[in-house]
């Protein structure tokens, strides 16, 4: 039994931790989040240089050949710093879809994703789809040697700044069939693509995308026609693992900041931490953090070991627990900080916001509990 990271992974973790400490003061983050593009292109270039963008990709594409454990190491530190750069959108989601599709498209695109010169996004959700990846009404009709796409994609993470977007669209089947979904890589500035970007509660950016008679060549099809759902669910699993790691990083800061604050804040001539009801609440927060971390390790290891069926079930469990525990920890961090907890000034509110958004992505706690129990 061994829960130690490899030396290489430890090094990566330390280097991300340092990066976050040096570059992600709350005030710096606030400024980055408020200005376009909503993150730092400079930081992105640094991340490419440090090799982080290469981690989950195969060596043949210029990658590092890493797995979900490497991504976890990075994302947990990102969670502590509330990093804004589109690592999840471009590397885990967009890059993940291209990687899994493989072929010429992967060979063409991934080197640019890895060197940071191209950013991707993944457009899977639609106004009616809620959390079901297979609820797709966007259509891709065959036309000559290509396809014509029409439809509306919703809440696309970093969609407005991406250079290329992976889009799920129907080439066959009914609205909620898993068969008949195809993935296409479209240029963000292609004719017929209308993007409407906006900030989300956590300071990140999302966008609505309208596709009107968007023409793509057959060479822009990722993987096989009609078989996109398999890729999509595998990418969603990786994204859930990455989000959970990020959430665990945020939870750690939430409970630790609360422990620190209650020892400093004096009311009734006592530090708040003297009051047993608050002590116990913080012990509960700590317990739920540790439990979340354990399940994160479990799901990540199972996924990395390639036992898809076991991993799938644990990933449902993880996304449930992360949502439930994250919100519990966030609510209590705010509560125990009193009025201060309600302000934009302290970091805890921002961690809490990120956790809320994480719960809403790729299915919330209820959704995954139901899948787990099924």
């Amino acid at each position: 039994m061994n829960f130690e990271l490899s030396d290489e992974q430890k090094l990566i973790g330390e280097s991300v931790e340092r990066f976050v400490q040096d570059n992600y003061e709350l005030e710096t983050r606030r400024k980055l989040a408020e200005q376009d593009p909503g993150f730092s292109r400079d930081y992105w270039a640094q991340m490419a240089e440090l090799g982080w963008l290469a981690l989950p990709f195969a060596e043949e594409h210029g990658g590092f050949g890493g797995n979900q454990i490497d991504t976890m190491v990075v994302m947990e530190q990102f969670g502590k710093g509330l990093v804004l750069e589109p690592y999840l959108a471009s590397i885990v989601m967009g890059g993940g879809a291209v990687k899994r599709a493989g072929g010429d498209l992967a060979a063409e695109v991934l080197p640019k994703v890895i060197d940071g010169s191209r950013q991707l996004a993944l457009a899977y959700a639609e106004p009616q789809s809620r959390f079901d990846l297979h609820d797709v009404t966007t259509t891709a009709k065959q036309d000559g040697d290509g396809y014509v796409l029409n439809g509306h994609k919703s809440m696309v993470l970093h969609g407005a700044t991406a250079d290329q977007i992976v889009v799920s669209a129907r080439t066959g089947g009914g609205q909620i069939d898993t068969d008949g979904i195809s993935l296409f890589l479209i240029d963000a500035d292609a004719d017929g693509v209308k993007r409407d970007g906006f900030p989300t509660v956590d300071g990140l950016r999302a966008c609505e995308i309208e596709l009107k008679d968007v023409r793509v060549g057959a060479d822009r099809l990722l993987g096989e026609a009609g078989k996109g759902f398999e890729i999509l669910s595998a990418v969603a699993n990786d994204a859930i693992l990455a989000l959970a790691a990020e959430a665990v990083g945020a939870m750690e800061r939430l409970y630790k900041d609360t422990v620190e604050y209650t020892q400093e804040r004096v009311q009734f001539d006592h530090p708040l931490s003297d009051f047993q009801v608050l002590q116990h609440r913080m012990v509960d927060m700590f317990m739920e953090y540790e439990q979340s971390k354990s399940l994160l390790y479990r799901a990540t290891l199972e996924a990395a070991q390639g036992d898809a069926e076991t991993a799938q079930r644990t990933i449902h469990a993880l996304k449930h627990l992360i949502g439930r525990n994250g919100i519990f920890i966030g609510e209590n961090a705010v509560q125990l900080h009193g009025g201060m907890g309600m302000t934009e000034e302290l970091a805890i509110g921002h961690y809490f916001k990120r956790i809320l958004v994480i719960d809403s992505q790729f299915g919330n706690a209820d959704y995954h509990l139901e899948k787990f129990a099924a």
Partner: protein
Amino acid sequence: MDIELSSEDLAFRDEVRQFFKDNAYKPGDDYNQWRLDWFKKAREKGGWDVPKWPKDFGGPGWTPTQHYIWEQETARATLPWDMPFGVGMVAPIIMGYGNEEQQQRFLPDIRARTVNWCQGYSEPGAGSDLASLKTKAVLSEDGSHYVVNGQKIWTTAAHIADWMFCLTRTDDSGKKQEGITFLLIPMKQEGIEVKPIITLGGNHTVNTVYLTDVKVPVENRIGEEGKGWTYAKGLLQHERTGLAGLSRSLVALEGLKENARSVTRGNGTLMDDGSFRAKVAELEVDLLAAEYTELRSLASAQAGAAPGPESSILKLKGTEIQQRIQKLTMEAGGVFSAAWGDKSVGPKFARGGMAGYLASRAYTIYGGASEVQKDVIAKNVLGIKRSSK
């Protein structure tokens, strides 16, 4: 036991409904004019503009049941915006402890809603432990005015207020509850600086207020010097019972169900989703119970008895219920609740869903944080005496 409304009560309910119907806002109306007119007409009905004021001060003198009916009906109606600080908070103190001159000076404007008030109690070092407040008020040598120095925080609406009712320290030699003085301070004057605090939902409602050598005439002191704590405490009790908002929660719960039914999931809606439906049902169960807790409390008030132990739980239960409604609304909006600011994507109700939920976290912090409220109940209701601390 009998909770049937009497025929008089039913008639009263119809009259209230009719009044709301006759005076509803119509598109195109000047909002502020409509608002002022509304209160004027409510006043002409016989004190409906100040339902909780005593009859001597122009209130309607309703029975507790009539108050309850009013609450229920107002929860369903679209009423003009009304801050609690004037009519609901400072007015009862002025009526109870102010002199006649002060009553004549302040109450008419408060009643007409032409001046805005804010509550200057909390300070950076005095939150739950309010009595440790430090904002200093020193009486001038000629006894004509106080000079006030200090800092207030979390002051809701200070940036739009004309007046602040403020707790200040005039003596720090004795127990901390002694030596607190209740002053009414005009906001638009030199020495007062108001700085916004932006809260998690992205809103500006609360502020920091800095007071530097602010002159306050002694005529603006309520009651005796050093007795402010006693005056304020009565009001805090009043404020807390007003925070349960159960009637509004019942209406909000209906809205939540309706919204959830508009969200499709597979072949059904979100209300067919087992876990979501169970959470809504649990909420409704608690709300049904809380409504009767409130009625029990009203009944004892009706009989002229002191509020029973059940009334102490209303603020806690009521705010917790409000928070759960906000949380389920956020969940119903799914990922669309995450859009920031005025941006609306997905179903209309999802707009600002997450921000609304975040803002609701304050309900268990202001007006007595829940943990401290429970301390108070343990001591005053359960009769638990602490051996140490």
